[in-house]
């Protein structure tokens, strides 16, 4: 009996926060009542290992069954406290980075199960090498340092066999006739050098210039700090891309589908060479998917390999996926893999000298699921259980075509190029509000296509793989078990009824996890904007900061200048002024885009000589004649809603103080540009201080918050353009109002509330902002 064999044993587990690791921990706790566990966990950036264990392992619904059987959370927590030790460690570091206590605990283990890996198929080559290739070796060496020889069960993958047709039996990688003899340590050195080279290359002046241009394309004139941060992000992303590409091509050059299989294969070989006296067993699962029966049918964690492909298909996004109809998709439910690992661990090392013995956990040879069958099952299931679009309408699934990987890739690449160009074109147009949403749509489509392309690149090899993985040892291990153990720790892939599995277990589970609409009707899911709006208008908020132009009113500094300048002109002069401004418009627009504060500084010189008192009087009238006619009533209502909720409201604008003075009753404070006044009571055209634009808005907001003891994380900001990003980024609740293309796309990516506010319907303000005949009415005596 396995439970008896492992009773009193201490078992170390790496990778316990992963999909397989969590299932393994659960089964050991539930079905092997008298063992102890030592979980080796990497410390998170924010959390300690104990916190990670709680949040990322024991909180998972995987343990619901055990919690229920024990009679509740308290009993479960007690069991965990009694039987589980959590130690900090990292398989990416030599010596695993253990503390003394950790070393003692690891040294006291009878069995070590190594399931930590970077399972992502597109890991950078250096990361894959450090974790997948060197990880098992580091564990073996640490055990030697500790002078102990527990049974090491290392989890690998069937795909170490590489891209090829035919049988792939359970033998060490280098015993395969197709093995190319390569020195794994050279691979390690070169992976590390690729990283160093890419880092250096990324800092070449031309590269850095490109990153800066890209940052500017994305953020526009968002100010130096944000642009700098974005450039650095770009650089890191570029380095990562280089390393991912290096991994993919190196793997392909050696005949592996990707860097994962390549590093895992070399990892097995390195382990064999470095194990010392530590006896080793290797377990190689195929594609691990949701549980057949343990702890409950359909249990899964994380959005894994096949799921995004399946969901994309059900959403009508992916219409073709490469694969050969008669090919085998080697899927294996997670609980069978767990059974195999525990079975191997209980059995002990198979080879007398302790050299690695191999067990493959796969379905392809014993109970194959043909690609054609899988496609058919998926298609019929979504026909009966369609997903629903945002309008609550069912999505019809496309007929899945069988094509080759190259053909699909070419198609997708062409579509992506086309969309890329369309997006560039639209990005160059001065759009805002709902029109800018077209560009978001285009961007979304491009992302869909590019995601599909990634899936095809990454997973195409797996559906196209025609290797058949032998499972003789697996079946033998299963056969050797007692009938009770066969039931409890089953690992026989032949028990899986694929029709039942796909229709009744896997797909329902995938749909549930994907958080997609699986119900018709509109009202079921609350629109995200409603939720975001509720957050913005929560009484907990402290401050609401507003931009003026195109956020509260559809107007700008040039318009208000034209109005004020024309108010006291006769007809002919008005026409001349208008003609002049219209002629200058392109230049002004260009200046404004290049640098807002330079533009304002230069433009405001036009007020030189304007009498202060007259401008004040005229500005009052401009409120009715211009500002209000171009205002967004919903925006003004929003300002007032914030005030009514007790939030401080502040207007931060590059417009001049006298222009916004009539709006004062809306705000607790106004931060605006101010002009200096000469001794003759006229403006001299110079600004008194740096106008609040770009990053100086953010600092204005910081200063304001500090002065009034306001928490910006609990504040909102409203703005319309990427120039306003600094202001939007410093608050906890940014709102994009009628955003121009760039901001629309940023807001969408970051999940910000977007408001589309328009002028009062039905009223048509004059297209040319010139003041009508001057009124001479005096105010009533007060």
């Amino acid at each position, binding site marked *: 009996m396995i439970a008896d064999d492992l009773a009193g044993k201490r078992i170390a587990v790496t990778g316990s926060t992963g999909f397989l690791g969590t299932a393994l921990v659960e089964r050991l706790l539930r079905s092997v009542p008298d063992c102890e566990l030592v979980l080796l966990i990497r410390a998170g950036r924010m959390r300690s290992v104990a916190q990670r264990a709680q949040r990322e392992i024991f909180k998972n619904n995987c343990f619901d069954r055990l919690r229920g059987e024990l009679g509740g959370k308290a009993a479960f927590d007690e069991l965990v406290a009694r039987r589980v030790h959590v130690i900090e460690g990292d398989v990416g570091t030599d010596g695993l980075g253990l503390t003394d206590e950790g070393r003692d605990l690891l040294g006291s283990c009878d069995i070590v199960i190594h399931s930590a890996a970077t399972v992502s198929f597109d890991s950078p080559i250096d990361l894959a090498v450090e974790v997948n290739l060197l990880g098992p070796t580091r564990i073996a060496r640490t055990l030697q340092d500790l002078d102990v020889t527990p049974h090491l069960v290392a989890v690998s993958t069937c795909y170490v066999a590489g891209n090829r047709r035919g049988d792939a039996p359970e033998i060490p990688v280098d015993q395969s006739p197709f093995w190319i003899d390569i020195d794994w340590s050279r691979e390690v050195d070169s992976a590390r050098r690729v990283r160093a080279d890419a880092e250096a290359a990324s800092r070449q002046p031309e590269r850095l210039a490109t990153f800066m241009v890209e940052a500017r394309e994305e953020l526009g004139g968002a100010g130096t700090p944000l642009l700098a941060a974005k450039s650095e992000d770009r650089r890191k992303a570029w380095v990562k891309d280089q390393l991912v590409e290096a991994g993919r091509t190196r793997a392909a050059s050696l005949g592996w589908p990707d860097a994962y299989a390549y590093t895992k294969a070399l990892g097995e070989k390195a382990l064999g060479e470095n194990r010392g006296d530590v006896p080793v067993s290797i377990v190689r699962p195929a594609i691990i998917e949701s549980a057949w029966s343990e702890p409950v049918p359909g249990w899964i964690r994380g959005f894994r390999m096949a799921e995004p492909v399946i969901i994309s298909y059900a959403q009508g996004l992916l219409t073709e996926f490469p694969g050969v109809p008669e090919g085998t998709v080697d899927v294996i439910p997670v609980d069978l893999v767990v059974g195999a690992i525990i079975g191997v661990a209980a059995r002990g090392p198979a080879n007398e000298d302790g050299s690695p013995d191999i067990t493959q956990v796969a379905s392809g040879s014993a109970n194959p699921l043909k690609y054609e069958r899988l496609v058919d099952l998926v298609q019929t299931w979504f026909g009966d259980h369609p997903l629903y679009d945002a309008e609550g309408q069912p999505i019809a699934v496309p007929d899945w075509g069988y094509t080759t990987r190259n053909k699909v890739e070419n198609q997708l690449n062409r579509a992506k190029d086309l969309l890329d160009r369309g997006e560039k074109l639209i990005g160059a147009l001065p759009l805002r509000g709902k029109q800018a949403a077209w560009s978001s749509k285009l961007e979304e489509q491009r992302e869909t296509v590019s995601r599909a392309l990634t899936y095809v690149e990454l997973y195409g090899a797996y559906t196209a793989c025609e290797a058949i993985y032998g499972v003789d040892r697996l079946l033998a291990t299963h056969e050797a078990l007692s009938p009770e153990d066969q039931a409890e720790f089953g690992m026989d892939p032949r028990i899986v009824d694929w029709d039942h599995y796909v229709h009744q277990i896997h797909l329902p589970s995938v749909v549930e996890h994907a958080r997609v609409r699986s119900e018709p009707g509109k009202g079921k899911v609350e629109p995200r904007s409603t939720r975001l709006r509720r957050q913005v208008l929560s009484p907990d908020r402290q401050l609401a900061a507003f931009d003026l132009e195109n956020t509260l009113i559809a107007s700008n500094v040039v318009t208000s200048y034209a109005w004020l300048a024309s108010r006291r002109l006769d007809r002919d002069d008005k026409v001349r002024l208008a003609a002049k401004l219209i002629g200058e418009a392109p230049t002004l627009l260009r200046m404004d885009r290049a640098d807002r504060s330079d533009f304002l500084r230069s433009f405001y010189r036009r007020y030189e000589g304007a009498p202060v008192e007259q401008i004040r009087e005229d500005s009052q009238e401009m409120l*009715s004649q211009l500002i209000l006619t171009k205002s967004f*009533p919903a925006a003004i209502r929003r300002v007032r809603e914030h005030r009514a909720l007790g939030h401080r409201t502040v207007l931060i604008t590059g417009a001049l103080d006298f222009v916004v003075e009539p709006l004062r009753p809306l705000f607790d404070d106004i931060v605006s540009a101010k002009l200096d006044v000469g001794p003759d009571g006229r403006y001299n055209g110079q600004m008194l201080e740096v106008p609040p634009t770009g990053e100086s808005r953010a600092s204005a907001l910081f200063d304001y918050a500090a002065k009034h003891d306001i928490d910006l994380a609990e504040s909102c900001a409203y703005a319309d353009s990427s120039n306003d990003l600094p202001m939007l980024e410093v608050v906890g609740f940014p709102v994009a109002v009628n955003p121009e293309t760039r901001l629309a796309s940023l807001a969408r990516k970051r999940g910000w509330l977007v408001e589309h506010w328009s002028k009062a319907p*039905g009223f048509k303000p004059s297209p040319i902002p010139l003041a009508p005949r001057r009124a001479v009415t005096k105010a009533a005596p007060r």
Partner: protein
Amino acid sequence: MPRPGFVLDVDKSTPPILFHHGEGFRLEKLPAGRSRVIYPGEPLDALDDVEGAIADALANPMEMAPLADLLTPGMKLTIAFDDVSLPLPPMKRPDIRQRVIEQVLDLAAAAGVDDVHLIAALALHRRMTEDELRHAVGDRVYDAFAPQGALYNHDAEDPDNLAFLGTTKHGEEVEINKRAAESDLLVYVNINIVSMDGGHKSTATGLASYRSIKHHHNVHTMEHSKSFMDRHNSELHHSNWRMGKVIADAGVKVFQIETTINNDTFGQDGPMSVLAKREWEWTTKDRVSFIGMQQGLKRLSSPTRRKIFQGHRAPYGVTSVQAGAIEPVHEKTLEHCFDQHIVPVEGQTDILTMGLPYICPYNVNSIMNPILVMCLGLGYFFNMYRGKPLVREGGVLIMTHPTPWEFHPVHHPSYIDFFEQVLADTKDPKEIEAKWEKQFAEDEWYRHLYRTSYAYHGVHPFYMWYWGSHALKHLGRVIVVGGDNRAVARLGFKSASTLNDAFEMAEDVVGPQPTITHLKNPPILMADVK
């Protein structure tokens, strides 16, 4: 001899009837045998010598000394006048206010009075623009007084410029314009287009503050004003009369001048003149010009159509001028109003139909938003009765109007929020009053816009809704034909795309083969329902 208004029983030979429909018109065939149409009277004869009539009224006032005798050197004189909400549509120049004010000013100048203020008595309406003031008082008066700051709009929210005069026996606070209250004589110049206007309401409402006005502009008062066009059965007027007494007791001396105009709204020639004609009397020329007008309007954008209609100035004739003490003057005015407007009608109807025109008192040079559509139909037109409402209790009101979801951003800011927020919450006048009025009435931003821009007071949309509260209580259903579905639904009414659909919908409420009465207004008529 102008023909009086009358009731036409619709039979098979009756031609389609013209319905107003905002900035447009509809021709509707009414079911024969059970429909009737109430036609307004033709324009009464106008006074030949308006200047002479004014001079005569000022020299021979009712129950008061001649105006010239009331004017003395060194006195404080204030002339208040009705604002842009009267008359509808605005009258051709010279406006009757200008003609009266010029004579009053001539008398004042002759008497050596030099402390004269002119105040637009706009209560909680929007301030009048320079153009509007010039139109009302004339350029000569405007240029003489406005630059000195002696011609201006009343400000019901100026704490420094209001005088509290006391409380009525019903506990109603009376607070009016301080300059008016402290003047030795207040001359009030009215245009009494309908019987609701004038009397004590001129000063007690026109020059009052929100604090004072709220005592009669509320749901309770409006539900007990049956109708508010019938001064002797109107709680609105009873309250204003009580306030008038407080004003008089406080020593404010009012010289009331009231003027009435005839029904010559659309003129005797020009494309609009067809609107005043009875359909079976249309000539071929009328038909052609009507069809031409319809086709032309169809091609225009709605702002352009609005501009054309709002540009219309009516050629009204003045039918009477009376001056002196408020109460006798007003009784005389009512007689003149009723002479023009009253049409005797036998019995109530199941369904009342009305074609709503492009204008109401609150969208002169502006936009008729959905709240104003409600107010014009359920407030003004529904209340155009004496005796009993034209439609029976539980009956159906069908109005035609495009009811677009459109608002003037400068004139009606609080309307926008009322429509978006308040009506989205509830349509019940009492609930609206209890839950929302205070918040809007005391709002700092609306107050700012009312005082410094050209916005109706924050509370004004509430009054529009209260104006219709008697009708809301009385009616079984309200249907709007040809309206914007969303806007009509927000009002709480039903939409129909044709009048026949509306009749079918109405039958669900009033039963089959209902009687139908069409109120063919404007030109203005008032039904005397027996």
